[in-house]
């Protein structure tokens, strides 16, 4: 038995023990420590295999005998899982202190990790589908254990309904692949012809895309992610959507054979819609966690842009860039897991300090919670995609790949690449807009209510997780080049790249990220010295001479108003102004404005109404009378006999 195998088995054993311990009335701290060490060991094992250790365990099979195993791609996703999950479990210790039913939540947390790891390590269709369903149900249970009011129950219902309707795609896709013996055998599906391949690919995009939160099947995500406990939100946004992307990658890049050009274009289009639409709606959210959930849709869209680009390159024969785009998408998966988990951890700490996360009523937390606030600032900059942090590195790679599609072999591809590149650039600008707003409203300025004034720093266990992940953001931003060559090895047509700390890719001007970080630090330090600390007496900020009051503070809606006006035709904002007159005098004005989520009003609403109307019709069939049901059976039998008689079936 190799060392890695031992490591993985030990990790699984500890994780299971940590999950069962609370059930057996063991101490919560012990249980959490076991879970954290277990998932960390799994992650280390995965990382070792990613970096070149031989694969362990079973290989992929289409039969029903269960099997677990780890290859390079699984190793990468396991490492990503561990980077988020180990801090998440430790964070949960502080977060769940004094919370009712914390024992159940710790068990559910462990179960969630087992489901995620099991999904990634599954080597046969039955284990895969079992873990897939478990992964969907456990967070729903965790949400309901924590809070059970009507709004939350509705959110969970939508979550389960949408992911199950969409999830049918996963079942169709995996069962079809198993039927044709294509799991683990790339040639098998290609031999079945283009129609079967198209069916599998479409089912995979719908099924995995729903769970990944790709537009237009994302409606559950901004509902479910905000209501979960923060460490579960971090796992849902950071890892669960990535597990869906893992499935998509397996199908599109391995099992479905060489993916055709059209599937690349479809993934690219969905990715562009999700990236732009996600960040656009994120910008107009008023609740921090809901905003973060929309931003998850954006980032999943960016990953899909990378995957789609990779398919386009592969089908036009450019294997180098296919591998680069593939690695870029994987790198963004890791990066997004890191900074989104960070932001959710910090949001959880803020929520504990304040009670609610309404963006317009926070303010000034950087002074009061320097550690959590500082980490939140780093995470916001990373997710906004500014150098020298990790978000910029992966977005740079994906943008480079899109630009290289733009001067591709055909006009159509070229236009698609250019449009997607321009869309990604606009998305990046919107992300800066969005997260500057978040940083400003949450961390900076004056506290906007008494709770924010009185906020104190979170306990050490809750402080450590975001600070650790902020360090990861900086490290991954400084040396992405150490990881990218290993990721390029995972592509269907691997391509070697020299391992350097920065990214030097042929056809680009290179991204020497360590030097950028160093240059920024040194120059900022120098200028800080030059600037000196001589300063005048403190003065209030200028507001035309009047004292700055809370009512003068800028709101989220005010800051985004120019963009709302510019994009009025797309966003269709609603506003109501009600003026109350009494005895000919204006007494008060009430203003209400909102940006409706157009997917809800234009797409989900009609579908939902249609389904309910259909259910009403169908209900008439259910009279409750046995004789009527017997008549249905007779009619069915006769109908089938007629069909057999005329030769339509049988």
């Amino acid at each position: 038995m190799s060392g890695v195998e031992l490591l993985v088995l030990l990790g699984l054993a500890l994780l299971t023990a940590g999950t069962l311990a609370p059930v057996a009335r063991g101490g919560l701290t012990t249980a959490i420590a076991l879970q954290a060490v277990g998932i960390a060991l799994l992650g280390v094992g995965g990382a070792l295999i990613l970096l070149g250790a031989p694969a362990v365990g079973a290989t992929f099979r289409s039969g029903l005998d269960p099997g677990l195993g780890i290859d390079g791609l699984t190793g990468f996703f396991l490492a990503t899982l561990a980077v988020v999950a180990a801090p998440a479990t430790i964070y949960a210790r502080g977060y769940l202190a004094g919370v009712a039913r914390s024992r159940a939540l710790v068990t559910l947390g462990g179960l969630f990790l087992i489901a995620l790891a099991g999904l990634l390590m599954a080597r046969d269709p039955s284990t895969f589908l079992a873990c897939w369903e478990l992964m969907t149900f456990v967070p729903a249970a965790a949400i309901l254990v924590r809070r059970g009011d009507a709004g939350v129950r509705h959110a969970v219902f939508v979550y389960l309904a949408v992911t199950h309707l969409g999830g049918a795609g996963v079942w169709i896709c995996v069962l079809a692949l198993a039927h044709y013996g294509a799991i683990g055998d790339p040639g098998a599906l290609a031999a079945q012809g283009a129609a079967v391949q198209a069916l599998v690919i479409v089912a995979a995009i719908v099924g995995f895309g729903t769970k990944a939160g790709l537009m237009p099947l994302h409606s559950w995500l901004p509902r479910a992610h905000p209501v979960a406990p923060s460490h579960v939100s971090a796992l849902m946004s950071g890892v669960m959507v990535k597990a869906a992307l893992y499935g998509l990658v397996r199908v599109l890049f391995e099992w479905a054979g060489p993916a055709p050009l059209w599937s690349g274009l479809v993934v690219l289009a969905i990715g562009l819609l999700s990236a732009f639409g996600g960040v656009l709606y994120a910008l107009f959210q008023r609740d921090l966690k809901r905003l973060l959930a929309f931003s998850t849709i954006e980032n999943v869209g960016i990953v899909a842009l990378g995957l789609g680009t990779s398919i386009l390159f592969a089908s036009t024969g450019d294997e180098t860039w296919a591998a680069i785009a593939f690695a870029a998408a994987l790198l963004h998966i890791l990066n997004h897991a890191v900074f989104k988990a960070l932001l959710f951890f910090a949001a959880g700490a803020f929520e504990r300090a304040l009670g609610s996360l309404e963006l317009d009523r926070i303010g000034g937390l950087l002074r009061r919670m320097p550690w959590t606030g500082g980490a939140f600032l780093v995470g916001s900059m990373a997710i906004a995609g500014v150098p020298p942090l990790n978000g910029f590195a992966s977005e740079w790679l994906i943008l480079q790949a899109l630009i290289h599609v733009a001067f591709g072999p055909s006009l159509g591809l070229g236009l698609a690449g250019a449009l997607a590149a321009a869309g990604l650039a606009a998305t990046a600008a919107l992300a800066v807009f969005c997260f500057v707003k978040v940083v400003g409203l949450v961390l900076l300025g004056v506290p906007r209510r008494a709770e924010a004034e009185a906020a104190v720093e979170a306990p050490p266990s809750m402080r450590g997780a975001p600070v650790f992940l902020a360090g990861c953001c900086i490290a991954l931003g400084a040396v992405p080049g150490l990881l990218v060559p290993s990721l390029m090895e995972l592509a269907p047509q691997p391509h070697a790249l020299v391992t350097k700390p920065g990214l030097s890719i042929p056809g680009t001007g290179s991204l020497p990220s360590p030097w950028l970080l160093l240059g920024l630090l040194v120059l900022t330090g120098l200028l800080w010295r030059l600037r000196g600390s001589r300063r005048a007496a403190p003065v209030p900020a200028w507001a035309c001479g009047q004292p700055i009051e809370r009512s003068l503070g800028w709101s989220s809606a005010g800051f985004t108003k120019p963009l709302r006006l510019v994009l009025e035709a797309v966003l269709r904002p609603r506003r109501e102004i009600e003026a109350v007159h009494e005895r000919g005098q204006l007494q008060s004005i009430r203003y209400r404005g909102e940006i409706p989520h157009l997917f809800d009003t234009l797409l989900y609403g009609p579908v939902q109404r249609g389904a309910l109307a259909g259910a009403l019709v169908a209900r008439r069939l259910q009279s409750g009378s046995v004789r009527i049901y017997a008549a249905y059976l007779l009619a069915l039998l006769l109908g089938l006999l007629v069909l057999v008689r005329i030769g339509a079936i049988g």
Partner: protein
Amino acid sequence: MIALAGAIQIIGGLALAPLLSGTVQALKARLQGRRGPSPLQPYRELRRLWGKTIADPQPTTVVYRLAPCIVAAATILALFLVPIAGLSPDWPLGNDAIVLVGLLALARFALAAASWDTGSGFALMGSSRDLTLSVFAEALLVLALILAVLPAASTDLVAMSAAASGSAIWAEPAHWCAAVAFALVVLVETGRQPIDNPDTHLELTMIHEGPLLEYAGRDLALLEWSAAARHWIFLVVAAELYLPHWGGFGAQLACLVTGVAVLCAALALTETAQAKMRILHAPALLASGCLLALVGLVSGLVG
């Protein structure tokens, strides 16, 4: 040769940048029939600001105080990326066009965060408009860059500059479209009319001046210099990628100087002839620039 290019990159960028905005102001005054300030006026202002004390509006945090240093540091790093006359020494920073865009986005983030820190309505109004325009400007910028990448097959600014040299490129309609599209980018990014009015200090109309409102002393000097250097960067990139240049280093340098001078004159002329447009109409202008760039791309890919 290459050392001279490197020297101009850094020393030129650091020292000559304020001259550009000074020249535009002086030219504009002449065109409007005024005597106006000398082109050296920005230097005098920087010297004056450098001697003054820093203001410390309450309540602000380290984000506000660090912002000028970060903005200036990002801008200085950006200077290293832009080749001069088609040459750039092997700085360890590379010459990538998208990294340049990223560094300028970092500066924008820092300044907008500082606006939130002061909580001043005027600063926030400015940055909210700036960020709104940046959504459209970045899309346009990337499209214009793609057109310049097309002949070079690389986003390396040195290779792009080399591919755009000579006269053959001007037979391509794509290059003409790219030049016009980038001209719009220059107008937005340098804060010129008809998008923004650099002369106004009327709080309700300004964009780029807004976030600077609370700063004083050396902080303001750093920010004013960064604005000038941004001007320099965009004009040099415009001349290097989208204006005619050919020959060896000497000839290219002469082309660069002429190109930048022509661009300054063109900016002064537009500012005199054009009124500031309503801010909500600016995105439509930028979107039409995007369409033009796409037309250019079609012609480039077909031709």
